[in-house]
């Protein structure tokens, strides 16, 4: 997948190529264009220049739902679930009509048992951490081949972060899935990702493997005051 664009001057000539099965973290301070990058890949914003290919198919002229049906999962930073729908309804929406809801909940039960027993509860009544679990679970049971995750750890307790990390690690180990994580929590990001990129003012200023790099170092160099 390669892309290059400038969108409302938020992104400038960004190029990224991910191999199948690769897990990449994108880090950087707020307002540097990370979320814009994900929104553009998901098809909500059209690149003003350049092109995007998801799983070898160009996404130009495609509606976001068409991109989603190509096998792209997108977990947005805000408003990523329907608070007035039940857990079951939230999950059902992401599932193709022919897939069984019970199978889906059997799988969810393995990763997040806390959700599986409360299928009829309204999603808005879950705690912040449980909501994030639901969002991640819903993205995973659709079996995306490329998953974009925007700051899923924001505002969560360490224990919940650990649960989410474990779930992602298990699922990515189980089957080939390409993941792009936008993260502020570098410890979380570095525990999962094989590669990281730093964004600054809409550009990628660094793109290298995480191997041999300490997250504290990267935090000091690129995020600290």
């Amino acid at each position: 997948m390669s892309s290059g664009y400038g969108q409302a001057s938020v992104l400038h000539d960004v190029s990224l190529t991910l191999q199948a099965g690769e897990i990449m973290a994108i880090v950087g301070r707020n307002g540097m264009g990370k979320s814009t990058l994900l929104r553009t890949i998901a098809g909500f914003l059209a690149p003003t220049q350049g092109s995007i290919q998801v799983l070898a198919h160009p996404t130009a002229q495609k509606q976001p739902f068409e991109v989603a049906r190509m096998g792209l999962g997108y977990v947005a930073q805000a408003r990523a679930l329907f608070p007035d729908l039940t857990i079951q309804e939230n999950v059902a929406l992401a599932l193709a009509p022919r897939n069984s809801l019970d199978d889906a909940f059997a799988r969810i039960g393995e990763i997040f048992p806390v959700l599986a027993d409360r299928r009829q509860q309204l999603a808005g009544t879950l705690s912040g951490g449980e909501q994030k679990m639901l969002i991640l679970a819903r993205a995973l049971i659709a079996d995306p081949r490329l998953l974009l995750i925007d700051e899923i750890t924001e505002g969560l307790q360490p224990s919940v972060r650990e649960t989410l990390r474990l779930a992602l690690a298990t699922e990515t180990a189980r089957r080939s899935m390409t993941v792009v994580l936008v993260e502020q929590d570098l410890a979380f990001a570095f525990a999962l990702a094989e590669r990281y990129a730093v964004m600054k003012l809409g550009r990628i200023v660094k793109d290298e493997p995480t191997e041999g790099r300490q997250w504290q170092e990267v935090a000091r160099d690129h995020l600290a005051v």
Partner: protein
Amino acid sequence: MVGLLLDCLTTSALLFLVTVGLLIIFGMMRIINFAHGAFITVGAYSSVVAGQYGLSPWLTLILGPLAAGAIGAIAEPLVLRRLYGRQLDTILATWGLALIITQLVTLKFGRGTQPVDSIDLGTVTVLGTPYSSYRLAVIPLVLVLSIAILLILRRTRYGLVGRAVIMDDDLAQTLGVNVKRVRFTSFVLGSAIAGLAGAVLVPMSSVDPNLGLPWLINAFLISLLVGVSTTALAFASLALGSAQVLVGLSFNSVSATLAIPVLAVVLLRLRAHGFVRG
């Protein structure tokens, strides 16, 4: 007293019936459909067509929704789809659509009132008061319709997808929901319900090309009041319908026709919210 109560109930039921199609379109598409009145007219004229072919007037209850739904299915891709996000232009364009439909009806049937064979059920006596059976039958019809709508919304996948689109269409898209198709279906459904309302109105009003216009005004004002909630619509219809009957009884028929617009405008001012976003 019983007659008055029944008047309130049947008037409210009619208001609900006339408004609910507008509400579906507004909820799913954020579109205020000024062609709604014209769809009602089309539904009513199905009785004229049925009469010409010697069909039973009961068939209009199917023909009306079919005809209006078909026009909706043509209009949505040609006009409405191009105007998403341009709310003001949608009001203008759907009003233009209403002009076109009304003129087509006039071209075909003339501008005068059409004599029609309408359903005649005679009267029944309710607690000692004789009352039109047909008017009375509107109440169960509306109840059945609203329960059907609720069931579709709560129990089917279409309903689930539809509710998701109302709540957050961007998020629905990221889950692979074809929002375009949901909107198309909603518009056709809303139009068809307007057609049904038109067919139901036939025995109670004269059939002419502008039949739908006064209903449009009431439906539009009520839909602004209630946002997208069908429960709120039921309450608003009951309150405003009763108000209209009572004002008509205490004053005259002109003040009765003005009761709903005036009340709605004042209520909207008091509630003081942007109802579009509500």
